[in-house]
């Protein structure tokens, strides 16, 4: 199991949310949107200019900036 920030995943890669780093009201809203420990998360695509990111969580799509994805630590299964 390796733990890395969500922003380092490539398109199509899946991870499990380990932790949302404290970042003021941003982290609070990320949690409320369902990005909490143990939730599977997937990178779907990047915007045409490389940022923001389209992620899939709990069956819906959410747009985040790379900076914001930096604070979401995910674990990858090592297979």
């Amino acid at each position, binding site marked *: 199991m390796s733990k890395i920030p969500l922003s380092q995943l490539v398109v199509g890669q899946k991870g499990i949310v380990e932790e949302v780093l404290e970042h003021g009201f941003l982290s609070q809203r990320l949690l*409320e949107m369902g990005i*909490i420990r143990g939730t599977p998360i997937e990178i779907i*695509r990047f*915007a*045409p200019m490389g940022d*923001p990111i389209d992620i899939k969580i709990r069956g819906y799509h959410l*747009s985040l*900036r790379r*900076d*914001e994805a930096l604070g979401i630590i995910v674990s990858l299964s090592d297979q």
Partner: protein
Amino acid sequence: MPEAFPNNPLQDKKILTVALAGNPNSGKTTVFNALTKMRQKVGNYSGVTVEKKLGRIIYEDHREINVLDLPGTYSLDVRSPDEKVARDVLFGQMKDTPRPDIVVCVVDATNLDRNLYLFSQIKDLGLPVIIFLNMMDEVKEQGKNIDVQALSHVLHVPVIAGVANQEKGIEELKSLISTDVAPADRRLWRMPEQVESRIEELMILLWREEGLAKSDTFSEAIILLSKDDKTLKEILRGRQKVYECVRAIQNDLTEWGINWRSVAIESRYDWISKSLKGVFQEKSGARQITATDRIDAVVTHKIGGWMIFLGLMALMFYCIFTISVYPMDAIDSFFSSVSGVVKNVMPAGDLRDLITGGVIAGVGGVVIFLPQILILFLFIGLLQDTGYMARAAFIMDRLMRGAGLHGKSFIPMLSSFACAIPGVMAARTIESPKDRLTTILVAPLMSCSARLPVYTIIIAVLLPGALAWQKAGLMLGLYWVGIFGAFVMAMIFKKTLLRSETPVFIMELPPYRLPLFKDVMMHMWERAVIFLKRAGTVIFVLSIILWGLMTYPKHDHLSSSEALKQSIAGQAGLLLEPVIKPLGYDWRIGIGLIGSFAAREVFVSTMSIVFNIESEGEDDHLREAFAKAAWPDGRALFTPLTCISLMLFYVFAMQCISTVAVVRRETNSWRWPLFQIVYMTTLAYLVSLAVYQGGLLLGFH
């Protein structure tokens, strides 16, 4: 005397209030439209410009129920002014709005987890709740199944499954609202026991010391629990006991290894996941590629995405400026003929002049933009209801960030091309106050449709024999100058006055859906009513004032342009001349500028009076008059350089009383609108000055 049942709201009140709550994109407004049909009105909550959408259901036995469509929100722990309204109404803290008797929580069935998060927050308040499980057709299409009865059982509330855009489940919902929904005050989820017992202390404190209703204390307490020290100090100023209590609990939790920021959120989601086991069945198998995935692959493609985006924008502006010509001509001739009738019917005199020259010309000059605004909102409605608007923001975010704005600033800026008022109001969806303020401050730099008549007439003077595409090209250039100015100013504001630590951009990308014609029409209708109300009130009054300034004191023996020179407005124009002469303007243009500070489009009608044009609205006459106009020494007034300087002034200057009024309401102070007037007008003056004087130096004239 018959006994009253004071505790049963369903019997002692004739008109109940039902609030519709739900996440954005849950189809809440479609449910609202289906429930209330055309029996709706849009107003404002007192003190804020958040729209209050109120409708009524009338039953066969003549009972009436009020339905309130709350702004969409993901949580009751609010971030934006829109969300705050939803929270305040549900907490019964909104002035002029009764606490709802029943809450209908509209839930997107394809997105149960996250939608039930809000539901569970509302449920905590102890209000009677009904769930309307929307978009059940999509759930079936995705090969999933929801056991509605089991869901109702685990959530302890009535659940109605339906498809709002096909009106499925609406009748059922109507009859359920009219019968009995029991309030349930038992909270369904728990946090770890030691947290629960500590939070109880805070609840008792809030109840005993601060007089908060018992049923609301839990919701308030967990919101406070999750806040960091800085925020707590802000919101709990002067509430030392509560502050100390929250901090003590947070410290204990940290000691026990519990994260106070996330414990409530995680416990709630845990409960939701557990509750949904056995309720929600998904066919396992390979990940399905949905229609939305396929569309997104094209729409957010590196090259294709931009082409679609630019194509849609071009199509929208093309429609705004071409299709609208016909209804605008019709409106124009309607007001001319009304004016003609008044002239025939009424005896000549001040009152007749006031009605024709003041009221009809003034109000007509604004109402003429209605077709353009309707077309803009048709597009915005379609783009929003299909889900494309979120993709536009997704594509644009990186660019907008260059100016310190973000993707969500895109919609306000786009709306501002029609009119800054809906633009400023659309900024409400931006959570961060500083980002929102920056957007509001620069939105009026987008060239709105009121600038069009001004640009049109000056371009006609500047390029008399030019082809249509050359004129259109120059017009487009002016738009770009405004956009560029907005970006530069936003960048400056974000680096100085409104510096903020973290730009935040968390935005849902909802599935693509076919928009309901009815909903889009309803949206346009609302906009039309709001716009016409403004024309009927603010513009109406201003037109009268302006007419008075240009008419009095009266000099009947003088020619009308000489009389104008002697009027209050004329004298003000003369007073202004030394200030605007460096920009290339004389006192007559000065009068136009003064009039324009009420509303830009007034320039054209004011100029018609200044240059003594009898038949209003005939641009050709005005163009000829402009071409002939000269300084006292015989030099031409409207030289190419003066024309350019004047157009640039109109690009940048804040000349719209209605926008000032809206910014005042949106920012809740006079500070920002005044600042906006000063910075925009200074910017306009400096740019025009630099261009005019620079041009003279370079030998242009």
